[in-house]
């Protein structure tokens, strides 16, 4: 099994589905950010798996995966800073109480 590309792709697909469920269903803003991290990791696994099984890609798969990791770090920094800034104003981490734009 560990020598077939399909196993890695299906594994990444299930992880992506778990992340999307968490993003849609959780009420806590930080839980939603953690679910986004899960989805980013699933996509990264797909990229590395393609790089490891398709010889035409060479080293490009791993390079793109490194770039994705760096961009994910930047995304986590800004996202958590935004959550902390909102929490300072609204005093709650629950996203369904962020309703200032609907009033």
């Amino acid at each position, binding site marked *: 099994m*560990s020598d*077939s*590309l399909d196993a890695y792709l299906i594994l990444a697909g299930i992880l992506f589905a778990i992340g*999307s469920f968490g993003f849609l*269903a959780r009420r806590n803003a930080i839980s939603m950010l953690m679910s986004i991290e*899960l989805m980013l*990791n699933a996509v990264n696994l797909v990229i590395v798996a393609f790089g490891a099984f398709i010889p035409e890609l060479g080293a490009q798969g791993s390079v793109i995966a*490194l770039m994705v990791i760096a961009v994910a770090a930047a995304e986590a920094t800004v996202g958590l800073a935004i959550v902390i800034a909102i929490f300072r104003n609204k005093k709650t*981490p629950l996203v369904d109480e962020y309703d200032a734009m609907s009033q």
Partner: protein
Amino acid sequence: MARKLAPIILALAVMGAVAGVAAIMLVLLGQDWEDALFWILAAVMLGSGLLVVTMRDIIRCGLAMIVCFGALAGIYVILGAPLIAAAQVIVYIGAISVLILFAIMLTQTKAAPSRLVFQTQAVPAAISAGVIAIVLALTVGATDWGEVPERIRLATNALSQVLFTDFVLAFEIVSVLLLAAVVGGVFLAKREPGGPS
């Protein structure tokens, strides 16, 4: 009590099922150890991923996320990409997890975990996530990707050669992006003098 334990039991059941499949493969079908390691790491990764999205206590969600990232680093090693695994450990387990745990400690109030964890659309979200997983699995099964039947192990030398010749512009742009993200994060999270405390 039962509601508290339900997510943990669910995740343990998934992990046990996959680990049982691995054990049966080892004993009955005579697979090698690399396959068994792949199955065990996949089981740990999916089980802790389920714990991340279902547990009540958000600190425990963060800790389960660290386990999930560690198992994924192991899968990168099996795939023959040790440098990506090292970057995964340093960036995700080392940096992002600590950032998320600090943000959890800064933002959680006492009342938050005792109330509802899920939105009202949790059941449609679960159904749509299942549909996504099934569609992705069917697509993967139906497509011929043109892959070779064995993994290509990439030397770190070759990877760094490509990174610092062909992709050097992207490398520099990512470093500038990281600098901008750090400055933006500090600016957004900074407490303004005279503002709301």
